[in-house]
């Protein structure tokens, strides 16, 4: 029993780390400019398709194409900011919600139009098979995905914490006007936030592409949890999203195992309600 429990806890941690990476991008965009990006799951979808096409057309492994996927998604995010989001930055919240929601539908529709609604998958990846030790067994792709998520989340955290550009981004998040007075170009910072946010989701997509089926609506399976993590960890907090990801992953998998999988989301959302009730700013959010 302890062995099975340990297995489920670790499985939960593995998936939780990927959840966290999806949420990191979302929380970054929200933290910097107070816009809820409903199209975030679609960045993940685009990351998955980028990996899939790299593999299907040129036999390139998702791990090799990962840097390009990240760069590509960075460009998509930054471009999307320049073309669309820039225009609604001071618009009422409802317009912002409609805009990103519309983008979500647009991206899904485009993906279905261009690539058909078929389910795709990437087979025979470089990392394949299982790691087994002491009676525990994990798919190597999942372990790699989790490790990749930790590295990427860590890189974002390091960037925000220890680089001048990251500090400028944080400054813009804290006070847009004051940052502008200090000579920080707000537009550039916003585009940067969207770029990094989209790149995080894209990397998550690339990491998931060898374990999860790829289809136009795939973002929907991850986006709800990502929103929970953003609120749970504290709006705008990267470390908060990280720990919340692990927590939610473990609660979902272990809770589903011990209780009833039909109610696993109930457990996750109850946890969310509990935290929001006791600590409205989220686990690591600033009040």
């Amino acid at each position, binding site marked *: 029993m302890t062995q*099975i429990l340990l*297995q*489920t806890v670790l*499985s*939960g941690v593995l*998936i939780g780390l990927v*959840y966290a990476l999806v949420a990191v991008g979302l929380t970054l965009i929200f933290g910097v400019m107070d816009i809820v990006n409903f199209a975030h799951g679609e960045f993940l979808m685009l990351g998955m398709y980028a990996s899939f096409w790299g593999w299907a057309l040129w036999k390139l492994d998702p791990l090799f194409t990962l840097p390009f996927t990240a760069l590509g998604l960075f460009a998509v995010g930054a471009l999307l900011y320049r073309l669309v989001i820039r225009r609604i930055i001071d618009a009422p919240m409802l317009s912002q919600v409609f805009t990103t929601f519309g983008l979500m539908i647009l991206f*899904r*529709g485009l993906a*279905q139009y261009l690539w*058909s*609604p*078929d*389910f*795709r*998958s990437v*087979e025979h990846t470089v990392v394949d098979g*299982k790691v*087994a030790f002491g009676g525990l*067994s*994990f*798919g190597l*792709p*999942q372990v790699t995905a989790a490790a990749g998520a930790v590295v990427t989340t860590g890189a974002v955290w390091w960037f925000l914490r220890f680089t001048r550009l990251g500090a400028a981004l944080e400054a813009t998040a804290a006070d847009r006007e004051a940052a502008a007075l200090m000579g920080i170009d707000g537009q550039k910072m916003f585009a940067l936030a969207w770029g990094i946010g989209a790149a995080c989701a894209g990397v998550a997509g690339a990491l998931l592409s060898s*374990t*999860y*089926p790829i*289809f*136009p*609506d795939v973002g*929907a*399976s*991850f986006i709800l*949890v990502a929103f929970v993590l953003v609120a749970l960890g504290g709006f705008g907090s990267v470390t908060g999203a990280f720990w919340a990801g692990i927590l939610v992953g473990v609660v*979902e*998998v*272990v*809770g*589903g*195992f011990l209780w*009833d*999988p*039909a109610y*696993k*989301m109930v457990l996750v959302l109850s946890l969310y309600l509990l935290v929001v009730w006791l600590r409205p700013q989220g686990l690591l959010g600033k009040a």
Partner: protein
Amino acid sequence: MIRLARAASLLAALCLAAPAAAQEEVRIGVIYPLTGAAASTGLELKNAAQLAADLINGTDKSLGLALAGAGGLPNLHHAKLKLIFADHQGNPQVGASEAERLITQEKVVALGGCYFSSVTATASQTAERYGIPFVNGESSAPNLTQRGFKWFFRTTPHDELFVRNSFEFLKDLEKRKGVQVKRIAILAENTEFGTGAAALQEKFARENGYEVVAKVLYPPKSAQLTSEVQKLKAARPDVVMQSSYLGDAILSVKTYKDLGFLPTALVANDAGFNDSEFLKTVGKDGNGIISREVWALDLAAQKPVIAKANALLQARHHVNFNGNSARAFTAIFALADAINRAGSTKPEAIQKALRETNIPGDQLIMPWAGIQYDATGQNKLGAGIIVQVQDGKYVTVWPFALASKDVAWPLPAWDKR
């Protein structure tokens, strides 16, 4: 006076002609999941339904089905069938509102669809309210025909028969091959389809003296199925009976493999496991999976019309029929047959003709004895088969009389597929 008589006869002629002119096309609304997670299945169903309509409208009689090549419905002055497709996105509310739109705005005379039992339930409710016939070809939740509806007809057998089949199959295997099955675990998604099937499996398992060691229901489109599979693994079942749509079916097989879960047999309840995309995606990992079906290409050995119809679909869409699309195709033929016999597009006339439907088995591309509806609107002549994935293809393994291959038992180890 003569002019008046002439004018009157002209008027009469116009009045009489009007309905005939209006019957140049028979409009039928068909609702499928054309976007969303099941969109690829929806597209297959749409293509199959459209092929059926085009065959009836066309003049190629080579298929050998009565209405195929009739150039439209003979009893309605060769009026052409026009299918108007709508997308329910897998959402019961959308299904109901699309049904309403098709009836009130597109003026369809009958409805078909919706694949998802949960959506068929709501869309057929709308049809019932408006008094428009609804012919469902591929939804298998038993309660759909247990609601006392007067306008709802279903050509496919429902899960009660399918589930009974899978237990008859196990019993037959025990007799013939001496396999030992005691512990059964049930895994199902928790919408109408999965919960209904799981309840039946539990009931039949108990009646047949099996022990149900786990019954796991999960929310569809989950990001992970680890807890579900762990629960199954902990229960150490001989046989897993699973009801999942496509995305979950793929994810579950990958999770089984990753967590090293290997029951003696996996008996799936159609749906995602029989989708054309399923084997393409899971590849060799699909080998050995057993599923209940209503159709398989290798039945063509006994029923040549199957190969002919399949060749037509291949020529057009480069894909084989499967159980879902063959049933969508069949539902359009069954509906067209009724409208033709009704000789009218009046809902009451179509309803009456549907009740009197008697299509013999040789007029179908299904391995059924035919189509005749009972008082609840359920086709009582349907039958199921059991298929198994062998070397990347679905082959018929039961009933033994129709089988083209022997059952492979137990499931091969994951690294030996």
